[in-house]
Structures are given as C-alpha cells and as structure tokens.
C-alpha cells in the first residue's frame, strides 16, 4: 500500500504523524493520516442551524492524533460546523482542562475534552461533564458505539453514567528483540525472574550493557511502574476503608522488583518516559522493554527503528510466578464539556466521529482500538502485530488503577518516597511507612479521610 505523501499547512499533529509514520510507505500513512482507504470518514454530527465552532482539547501523540483528526477532518466538511484542534502537550492538557471546564455555563474554551480513566473520574465527580447515556441508548447502533467492548465502556462511567466514548485502550506489554533472544536460545520471559535471567544472559553475551528498559520517569511513570509490580505481587494501594497500605510485604517486594529492574537499565532510568524508553529499543541500546502497547508501532517502523524487522511482542511478565501480569490498563476517550455553548446533539455527533470507522482504521497502526469488529479485522491486525500481546495481557487479568477520585492524591503524595526507595539501598519498608504517612496526611487535607 503506497500513498502519496501530501504535506499541507495543517496542525502540528500532522507533523507527529508525518514524522512517526514518515516515509513509511509500508504502514501506508502520509501526513494526512489517510489509513487504509485514505477516506476522511463521515461526520456523525447533524448540520447545525447556524454556524458553530467546536474546540477540541487533546494532547498530540501518534496514538491520539488519528482520533482527534477523525473529528476535525470529517466534521469540518459539514456546513455551519467548524472543528478546531490545536495540539498541546500532555501536562498542558491537564492544566487547561480544569480551567476551561470550571468556567460558568456557556463559558468553556474547550467543548470536547480528551480524558482517560483517572481524569474522567476527577472531572465527572466535579460535575463538569455531560452524560452520554441517553444519546447512546438512541444512537448507539448507528454510531458504532455498541460495537465497543462493554468492559471498556464500563471504565468510562462514573456513578453509573457514561461520560466519554473510548477510542482506544492501552496496556503494558513486553517488546523484545527476537533476533537476540533467539540467538541466545531464550524464550520471551513470562515472569520477572525469567526477565532477570534473560537480561543477565544478554549482558554476558555482550549484546547490551543495559538490556532492559521501561519508563521509570520520576515525574509520574514511576508510580505506574510501582503499581504494576505491586498489583502483580498481589498488593493494593488502599484497604477497604480507603487507607493507604503500601507498607506491606507486597509493597516491599514491589520496591525490590523495581530496584532489580533498574539495575538492568541505563543510569538515567528515572528520567525515562515512554518516548525515551522506546528510543533505547529503536537504537539498539536495550533488548527488552516493558512499555505501553501503543508504542509498538514505532519499533517496527524502518524510518524510526534500526531493527524494525527484529522486534516481537509478548504479554507483560508477572512479578511472581502465577501472579497477574505486571501491567496497567488504561482507556482514552473524548468527553463533552457541560459548560459548552454548542448544542449537545452537535457535540455528541462530533464526539461519536472519534470512534467512527475512519477513526478506527486510521488509528489502528498506532493504538489498541476500542471497537470489537475492527480489532477482529485481519487487515488491521496485520498493521498492528502488538495487539495480540496486549489482548493476552488483558485476558490474563491486567486492570486499571482503582477508579477513585483520591487516586491522584495518593500517587502524588507517595511518589517522592517511591523514588527515594527505588534509588536507595535501605529497607524498602522504611520508605513505604513514610509514603503511607504522607498519603494519609494528603488524603486527610483533601477531605477523603477523616
């Protein structure tokens, strides 16, 4: 499949796509993200009676752009409808969303906002989002929403109401250099112990000094990595009463896991975000990585990866034999701002376009898409060889963070102690006791604990 590369003066998200996919005739995407058919898709919004502008807030990333772009390219063709999107980085999205959503009625600067499970809970609990239940009951079949796995939709609910349409899900998987593992006679590891053994062999064989990589960024990813190990060890962040419970045997085991994993990573492990972790695989500095599945696309892309033919994907290993995969499940989708001055029917139509056929087809190479029939489409599966590993990881029991409004508070307040523990050599319990105390204090200040 070879598509002419059309470069137009279009938002930066095109650049993202253009660059990531660039010159990738193989993946069949040019800067217009045309996907298999090159179709712009159909906008599901009815024609507004008078001109309206819809502003979309969504961070720019290869895995997000196709879905954002689906709304702008299809719906800008509708008379009286203009859909704007200017990409921002992830942290800017987290700043701008509350500013806009908290404005009084009709005061929104963004009408449609990207959310994932954690922010959905936060915004919905504050009453900032418009529920979609009635609209889906009426239009679910025609719009394709009914084709989305109910388990996914369940994660976009708060208090029994649906607040966002998920366009994709993500989960950590193992991405590894099949050539190296094969040459050493190693199977893809299924537990951390097997992973350590594989890493040792790779080091001994002189294939890589830093055979492993994962995103341990002290900014936020380290909490995710800790969550993965913790839940796989059988531990949890809080008990039934909502009190933090990190200072547990499972918590200590999780810290030890992260220390051990870090010993196989480059010395700047705690600065690595997903992108930098991927770069280490792309340029051959690491041979195995545990990374969000959606990043798989950039490893098999010859323009970005020196070893595009050598990568294979497997489910995320478990921290201990028989444990759940050490992985976190997330869902991304779009939601409607309650304080938008644009009519709900119009917004819902634009929103549904983000899970339309064109969005799914164009997004397929870059994300584990949400609609069941598309996930089963062999043509799309061929573009995304990492899907199977992701679906297997989910089947083996990988789950989301607890979807509670207090989770961000817990993660933020405990993060410095987790960083300290992972960096240090002392008894992990000492740091975890401090982490629990900090979380307790933060939860009490925020009113979640008495």
């Amino acid at each position, binding site marked *: 499949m070879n598509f002419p590369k059309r470069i137009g003066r279009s938002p930066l998200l095109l650049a993202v796509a253009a660059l990531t996919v660039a010159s990738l005739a193989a993946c069949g995407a040019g800067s217009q993200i045309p996907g298999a058919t090159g179709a712009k898709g159909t906008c599901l919004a009815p024609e507004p009676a008078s001109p309206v502008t819809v502003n979309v807030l969504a961070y720019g990333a290869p895995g997000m752009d196709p879905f954002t772009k689906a709304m702008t390219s299809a719906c800008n063709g509708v008379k009286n409808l203009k859909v704007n999107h200017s990409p921002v980085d992830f942290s800017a999205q*987290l*700043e701008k969303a509350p500013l806009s*959503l908290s404005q009084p009625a009709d005061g929104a600067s963004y009408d449609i906002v990207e959310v994932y499970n954690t922010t959905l809970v936060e915004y919905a609990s504050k009453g900032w989002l418009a529920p979609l239940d009635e609209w889906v009951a009426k239009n679910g079949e025609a719009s394709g929403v009914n084709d989305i796995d109910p388990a996914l939709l369940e994660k976009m609910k708060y208090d029994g109401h649906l607040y966002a349409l998920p366009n994709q899900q993500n989960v950590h998987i193992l991405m590894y250099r099949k050539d190296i593992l094969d040459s050493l006679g190693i199977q893809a590891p299924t537990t951390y112990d097997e992973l350590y053994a594989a890493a040792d062999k790779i080091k001994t064989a002189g294939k890589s000094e830093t055979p492993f990589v994962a995103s341990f960024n*002290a*900014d936020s990813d*380290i909490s995710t990595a800790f969550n993965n190990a913790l839940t796989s060890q059988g531990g949890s962040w809080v008990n039934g009463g909502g009190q933090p419970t990190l200072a547990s045997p499972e918590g200590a085991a999780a810290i030890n896991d992260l220390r051990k994993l870090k010993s196989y990573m480059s010395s700047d492990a705690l*600065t690595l975000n997903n992108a930098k972790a991927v770069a280490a695989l792309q340029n051959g500095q690491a041979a195995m990585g545990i990374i969000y599945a959606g990043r798989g696309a950039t490893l098999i892309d010859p323009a970005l990866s020196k070893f595009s033919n050598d990568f294979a994907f497997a489910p995320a290993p478990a921290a201990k034999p028989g444990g759940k995969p050490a992985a976190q499940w997330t869902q991304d989708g779009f939601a409607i701002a309650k304080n938008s001055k644009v009519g709900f029917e119009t917004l819902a139509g634009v929103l549904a376009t983000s899970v339309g056929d064109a969005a799914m087809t164009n997004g397929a190479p870059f994300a584990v898409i949400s609609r069941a029939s598309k996930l089963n489409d062999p043509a799309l599966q061929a573009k995304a060889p990492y899907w199977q590993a992701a679906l297997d990881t989910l089947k083996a029991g990988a789950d989301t963070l607890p979807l509670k409004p207090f989770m*961000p508070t817990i993660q933020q307040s405990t993060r410095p102690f987790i960083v300290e523990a992972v960096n240090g050599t002392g008894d992990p319990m000492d740091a975890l006791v401090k982490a629990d105390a900090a979380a307790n204090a933060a939860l009490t200040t*925020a009113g979640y604990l008495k």
Partner: protein
Amino acid sequence: MTLLMAGPLFITAFDSFRKVSYGDPGLFVGFANYAATLGDQRFWAAAGFTTVYTAAMTAGKIVGGYVVGLMLNAVRAKARAFFLGLLLVPYVVPTVIGALVFSWLFNSTFGGFVNVLLAPLGIAPDWFTDPAAAKFLLIFHSIWHESAFGILVLVAALQSVPRERIEAAALDGAGWWQTQWRIVMPSIRGFIGFIALISIMDGFRVFDSIRMITPAASTVGTESLMTYVYNVALGETQQLGLASAINVITIIIILIFLVPFIRQTWREMKSA
C-alpha cells in the same frame, strides 16, 4: 495599566484568606491558608531551595559579569563586539528554549555530551533525579542563562571607572588585586546593587527553567516557590486559596530583600 496589575494583586490577597477552587464560590477561612503553608515542610523546602538558587545565581552573575567584563575591556573594540554578541546568546533566547537545549547536553537520550566528557573522570551524576546534582544543574543553567545581564551592566560600568584613579593607585604601588578591591569595586557598587536587585526579583520567581529541566521537581527536590504554587493551583490540586497565600508570602519575601535598594534610591532622590 496599573489597574491590570493592582486588580490581580488584590484578588490574590483576597483569595489567600479563602478556601476556593475553580468555579467554586469559596469560603472565608481567615489565616488558615497561611498557617497551612507555614506549617508545611514542603513550603520550607521550596523556600530554602529558592533562596539558595537566588543567592547562587546572583553571586554567579556578578562574579561572572565582573570577570568577563574585565576581559572584554581588555580586548580590541571589534573583538569585544564579537565576543559580547556570542555571550548574549543564552540571555536573549526565550528561557524555556535555552533551558531545553541546555539540558540536552546532560541527557543521555540526546547523546549526553557532558556525560561523555565526565565519564573518564569517574563522574557520572544522575543529573535529573539525584537531588544534589539536579539542584546544581539548575543553578548552573541560571548562571549560563543570566550571566549576560551581569556582563551587560558591568562592561560599561567598568569603563566608567576613571583611568586616572587606577593609574594613581598603580603609582602608589597597589597591586592588581588591591586596585580592584579599593578603587574599581567601590566605584561600581551601585551597578552591582542594580544587578542584585533584578536578580533577586527574578530568582525568587524562577519557574520556566525548572519546568523544562526537571519537570518532576517535587520528587527530585528541585521545587521552587513558583513550581510549588503551580502544583498547588494547577498541577496536583486546584487549591487557589492556598496558592494565593504562597504567592503573598513570596511577594513579601521579595519586598524585604528590596528594602535596602529602595532606601538607597530614596537617598539619591533627596540629594538630587
């Protein structure tokens, strides 16, 4: 225009006595926000780092400006213009961009140029996660970024020192150091004060560079007063009241440092 600045200042002072978030009517809580701030270890850590940062940056700027200023005045005019132009580069480019490209030199993902130079010496700090190294990096960046301001002021200031006095001192048998210490420095004291003034105002408000170089400031110990405010008001939580109280305290700290300068100006005005 005054209103545009005074208005927000008033709102901030007002909010600092309330518990309030976005789109929320708010509740008057008296001095609770101040009590919470002053009782919070995180505030003192941020205030401590910000103070050290400001002091180191100010000292670096003055010493760097002085040394480079002397050197610039020792070369021919054409060369001076050439070097000064290059030295101005880090200062004129937007802080966020300078901070980004500066940090890349220490980042292995971008080749880690400095790390490669230091490796043979056995020095391999974790620039972005080890608190001491990260603090050093931020201070080093501020000196890299801001020295040009010191140079700009001092290169001209040094020219304004009357030659006769320096020559007279030399005739009296004063060495180079003595000349600098007794003649040059006292006569440019006012300029150094000016640099310190601007530097204190900017140092206490540092935000842009920390956001670019160590986005995880609160976990790696490089949180400044302003990144703390950011986290309280926009990042981690949306407690506008608490953030306002921290802002007010920061303004007060800055003003305390400005008092000597204001008195100096007052004396000049009266004598004029």
